[in-house]
């Protein structure tokens, strides 16, 4: 097998080795391409190992969600799977449960947060890409700092403020606080998309007689649409997965599914299998979206418009 690999990997002539006297030792270039092949398969092996490793928690939680109460602490992979946990979490045959409500709350806050971020972030990113104004860099950096400041540092004053403003446990409050998560993402990523588009595209439209607004909507916006799609999905995932804000700033009304899944840990019985079922379902929307995202994250949008 290794010879076929080296032969295809080295088209420079080692395939014609038959006519030469077969060398006693592998020729240098053969040896080096064999080394390359070896390095390649090593890389594959380690990638596979990493893949298996990162799959462990997912397999674990999936298995756990299918275990009965009796099995949950006593078995690893050998158990009789049951969907009982899912039925319990969703309250099927039990008149429904609050899980569905929390799931919807997650949807509302995440989608709402993304929409607000887009409405403000798209113009902001455009302005940041096209104009230098006083303090523009500082503003952008401040925005970015929201991302790397630990949320725990602000959460206590924030919850006090929220209590007093009446934003505690409201959708508006949640959507607002999630801007800390989604807005920097939207502005920073879209700014680079806008920057990639040559200003001449718009200028040409202006010369053609379009107004500034028309030029923006007709030339620039359609070209960054893939970027908007990508950043929306990304922001949605971040908002959905956020735990600390709903954990501290909501109690029942606007509580999200990430927090409510923990509810099964309370009471007199610790039911990890129910938590697992809740978590698995909560992980579905980001997972599905993540599959879509890859396609959109491909760059090179202004390809063909700019000189190479």
């Amino acid at each position: 097998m290794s010879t076929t690999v080296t032969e295809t990997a080295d088209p420079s002539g080692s395939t014609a080795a038959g006519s030469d006297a077969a060398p006693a030792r592998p020729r240098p270039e053969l040896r080096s391409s064999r080394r390359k092949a070896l390095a390649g398969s090593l890389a594959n092996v380690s990638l596979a190992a990493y893949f298996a490793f990162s799959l462990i928690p997912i397999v674990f939680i999936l298995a756990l969600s299918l275990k009965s109460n009796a099995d949950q602490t006593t078995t690893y992979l050998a158990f009789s799977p049951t969907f009982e946990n899912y039925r319990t979490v969703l309250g099927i045959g039990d008149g429904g449960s609050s899980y569905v409500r929390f799931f919807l709350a997650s949807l509302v806050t995440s989608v709402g947060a993304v929409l607000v971020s887009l409405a403000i972030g798209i113009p902001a990113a455009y302005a940041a890409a096209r104009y230098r104004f006083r303090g523009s860099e500082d503003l952008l950096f401040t925005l970015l700092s929201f991302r790397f400041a630990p949320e725990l540092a602000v959460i206590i004053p924030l919850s006090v403020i929220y209590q007093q403003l009446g934003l505690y446990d409201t959708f508006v409050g949640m959507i607002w606080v999630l801007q800390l998560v989604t807005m920097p993402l939207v502005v920073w990523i879209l700014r680079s998309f806008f920057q990639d588009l040559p200003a001449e595209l718009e200028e040409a439209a202006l010369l053609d007689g379009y107004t500034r607004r028309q030029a923006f909507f007709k030339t620039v916006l359609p070209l960054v649409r893939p970027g908007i799609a990508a950043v929306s999905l990304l922001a949605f995932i971040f908002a959905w997965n956020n735990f600390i804000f709903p954990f501290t700033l909501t109690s029942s009304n606007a509580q999200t599914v990430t927090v409510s899944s923990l509810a099964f840990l309370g009471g007199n019985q610790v039911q990890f299998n129910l938590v697992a079922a809740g978590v698995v379902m909560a992980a579905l929307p980001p997972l599905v979206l993540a599959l879509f995202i890859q396609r959109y994250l491909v760059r090179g949008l202004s390809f063909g418009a700019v000189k190479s």
Partner: protein
Amino acid sequence: MSDLAIRDLRKTYRTKGRPEVHAVRGFDLEVDSGELVGLLGPSGCGKSTTLRMIAGLEDATSGDIRVGSSSVVGLPPQRRNIGVAFENYALYPPLSVSENIAFGLRARGKGDRKKRVADVAHRIGLTDILDATPVGLSSGQKQRVALARAIVRRPDVLLLDEPLSHLDAGQRDTTRRELRHLQQELGYTTILVIHDQEEALSLADRVVVMNDGVVQQVGTPDEIYDDPMNLFVARFVGEPPMNLLDGAHQADGTVRLSTETRVAVGDVPDAVGPVVLGVRPEDVVLAGEADADVSGVVVVYENLLEHGLLTVELPGAEERIVAQTAPGLGLEPGREVSLALRRDRTYLFSAETGRRVR
């Protein structure tokens, strides 16, 4: 199609925290209707800035721009009816070539769109690629699409920023000819920014030489080449470049290049003192000792295909002199040669101001 008059146009870029940039400092030009003017100058001298001010994409700091009989200063680009073909084409990737060309017609809601696109495409030779998207086109084709887009709505003035710069040598030649032909046929008042001086001289009715935001000279290609007004134009225009030799003009009508070398130039009133003697390599000829103006030692002889270039060191002089000779002379380094300068094509510039004194 209208004439264009620009008076004392200036542009100062002011960016906070950075020194002001005087990109254009007093630009004057009148372009007749249907004329093609080439804007020539080194990188960063303000050519693009000038075009952008004419188009309205950049506010002029001061000065006046008139198209036809009315001033366009203060008007937004939408209301100037000026066509621009950008250096980077500014084509719209998702649209086909014909849609790109029609893009500008749609804004003004012009009818007979199809006919006009087809007509322009036919003239520029784009008929075959009307349905292609810009991504796959060659630079030359993109260039032509950009041009088609600029002219399809029949602007009063056409501005082209380095339309040939991304083409290879062969494409350049043909595109240049096409461009000239088209411009004459359609009669557009055109300003063309052009990096390559040879192209500027061969293409334009008149050439504007710019440096550092200031117009150095405006004239026909012949005037620019034969009659440079100052050192900058003399140095910038011409390939191989003009010989420029430092010297001192003496009262006896000679220029002293060094203690050993003097060149007789005749009387030049009021020009006694430090000067720069300019003469193009083609006006320096090998001569017998009797007719020689200067003599020196061969440094190198480059045998090019159409001609030879002879570099000669003059005794005591700092600069070497280059002569354009017949090809294949085979002059070895170290050999003594005598050179004559064509008197009527020898220029004198003031070393102080750079202005030409003869």
